[in-house]
């Protein structure tokens, strides 16, 4: 019997692009991580020198620490807000459409524009908080400012995911719960949340991997500063590679990032049972 599914050849363009623009560069980076290369001439193999340097590099370790902090705080900050706004926006209120469109606005701006906007707003001499708290200038606060700006940009996206998923929850579940006398909070906790479980997983993976590899916002907003207070791992890689022109060493940092990112998404998928995805809706 002939398969109803499209032939495997349909995937060739996708695989081709993936191989050319993801797999091949990654292999090259792995090769470069075993070389010394200043960006000029030919890379010179130097064994595991980059890797032993990475193991001993306090600055790189600190950058990993900052990256993890950024990831965790971003997730903790974005998830509840996106979830609540998303569920609210899935309702039937009259103001909903207008307000939802306004909440959606940050997503329409480019990252560079957002970073420049907040940089100007938080300018220590001419910004809204001039003379007060130093959101970008205080090494202890700057990373939280970065989290806030990233969240401001991406919460609308996650809100949209939750909104779509919450819309798909059958009304009959809520009707049954109402008949059973469940409260609003009870309905949210026992129907909405469990039904949104897989959306939560998807959104979390995107958030975690996204903040692991976030780069442009931090580069423009703080450049990793003040000092090294917001120099996260991707930025550390960039500065090593494109300011210091130590391409070999930057490549080993890149390999670490690829491995961490892949491991992270695999782990979240595993632990959350995402692979065994099943519908909990009626009729299945």
């Amino acid at each position: 019997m002939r398969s109803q599914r499209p032939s495997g050849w349909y995937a060739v363009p996708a695989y081709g692009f993936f191989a050319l623009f993801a797999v091949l560069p990654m292999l090259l980076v792995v090769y470069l991580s075993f070389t010394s290369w200043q960006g000029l001439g030919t890379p010179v193999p130097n064994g595991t020198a980059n890797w032993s340097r990475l193991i001993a590099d306090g600055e790189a370790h600190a950058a990993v620490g900052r990256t993890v902090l950024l990831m965790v705080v971003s997730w903790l900050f974005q998830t509840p807000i996106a979830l609540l706004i998303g569920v609210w926006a899935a309702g039937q209120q009259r103001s909903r459409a207008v307000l939802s469109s306004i909440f959606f606005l940050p997503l329409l701006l480019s990252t560079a524009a957002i970073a420049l906007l907040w940089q100007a707003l938080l300018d220590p001499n001419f910004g809204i908080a001039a003379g007060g708290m130093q959101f970008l200038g205080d090494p202890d606060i700057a990373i939280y400012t970065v989290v806030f700006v990233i969240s401001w940009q991406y919460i609308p996206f996650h809100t949209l995911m939750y909104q779509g998923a919450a819309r798909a929850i059958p009304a009959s579940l809520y009707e049954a719960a109402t008949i059973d006398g469940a409260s609003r909070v009870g309905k949210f906790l026992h129907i909405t949340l469990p039904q949104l479980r897989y959306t939560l997983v998807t959104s979390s993976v995107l958030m975690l991997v996204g903040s692991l590899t976030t780069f442009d916002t931090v580069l423009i907003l703080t450049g990793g500063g003040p000092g090294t207070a917001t120099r996260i791992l991707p930025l550390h890689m960039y500065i090593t590679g494109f300011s210091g022109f130590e391409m070999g060493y930057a490549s080993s940092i890149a390999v670490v990032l690829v491995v961490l990112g892949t491991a992270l998404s695999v782990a979240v998928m595993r632990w959350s049972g995402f692979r065994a995805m099943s519908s909990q809706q009626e009729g299945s």
Partner: protein
Amino acid sequence: MRTLISTGLVAVAAVVSACGTAGPAEPGAGGVKVWALQDPVLNPIEQKSIDFFKSGGGNASLETFGNDPYKQKLRVAIGSPNAPDVFFNWGGGNLKEYVDAGKIADLTPVLDQNSALKSAFLPSVLDGAKIDGKYYGIPMRGMQPVLLFFNKEVFTAAGAQPPKTWDDLLALVDTFKAKGIQPISLAGSQAWTELMWIEYILDRIGGPEVFRNIRDGKGQGWKDPAVTEALTKLKELIDRGGFGTNFASVGYDVGGASTILAQGKAAMHLMGSWEYVNQLGQSPDFVKKGSLGWVAFPSIPGGKGDPGNVVGNASNYYSVTSGSSQVEAAKKFVSTALHEDSYVQALVEAGDVPAVVGVEEKLAKAANSEYTTWIYGQVKDAKNFQLSWDQDLPAEKATAMLTQLQEFFLGKVTPQQFVDAVAAR
């Protein structure tokens, strides 16, 4: 995903460089390819020099790029089939990396054969592109020493005089703090602005030899006691509140350190000579009413360095790539078009101070002559012109040093920790 992109960039750089070993470029239709920085003032003048070259029967074209992308693009392109034939650079250690890789044509024979060319430029500036006794670049624009700018109105209101010595400077810090004015403006989010301070202080205390030893890996290098002494002096200034408290997130772009000075929120600003043109563009009234003042960096009594020494960028240079198929035409371009009268005149009119001998007369006749004549005299009389350290050190060492310096200004590392960290690289 963004990391993947940057990862990809590194890889693409690898591919491009690998292709580069394949062979020299085909002779381009545009003749000599000249690469320079994007600069609304300078670009038309550069175009003029190309037109001049063309009128003499040559053929050339100009391509320009933004600052940071330029450095990256140049890195990848040099040695590839897409390499420029002539490119804009800063001389010093930065250029040395390319020279060491065998990518740059030696211009010494050109200068030796043409004594009129060699004697056209100030020797101290020409030396900025001299590496291991050979010349690899020809100065193509104005000199950019670092000097101390100040707001005359703020000084008059406080009854103060611009500082002549380090102690004057410290006293001024107290004077302005008492008046609620930030004594010194600093664009601390960009490490190169902080670098200017330690460059000058070390030169005044230990003389130019200390940094030369650091650069050449001679003597005690960073462990020279003069370095620690200089850092300690600088720390005193930082801790005293010389730079205020919020410099860490101030930039040098619009609305940054220059604006604070122009608005009288700060009294002084140590910056390269381009600050004048910058202020003229951003706060024209401030400059036109004569409120922008300037002096040389204060002397430090008891120090070994000559108080006339300057630091900064001696000039920018055009260098010729050795792999170019147009080497001879490129050499002809750099040896004829850059000291030629109309080019120099155009630079002067743009407020630049060309590193050309005997340009005083032109400067005196042009606008802003008070300023440009002062700059010219300052550089001409200087016993030593130290190139900015971040340009004079190899990129990896410069990057590590700038990182440590920002931590130092934030008080996160002590002078000793700074020395230990940079000496370890």
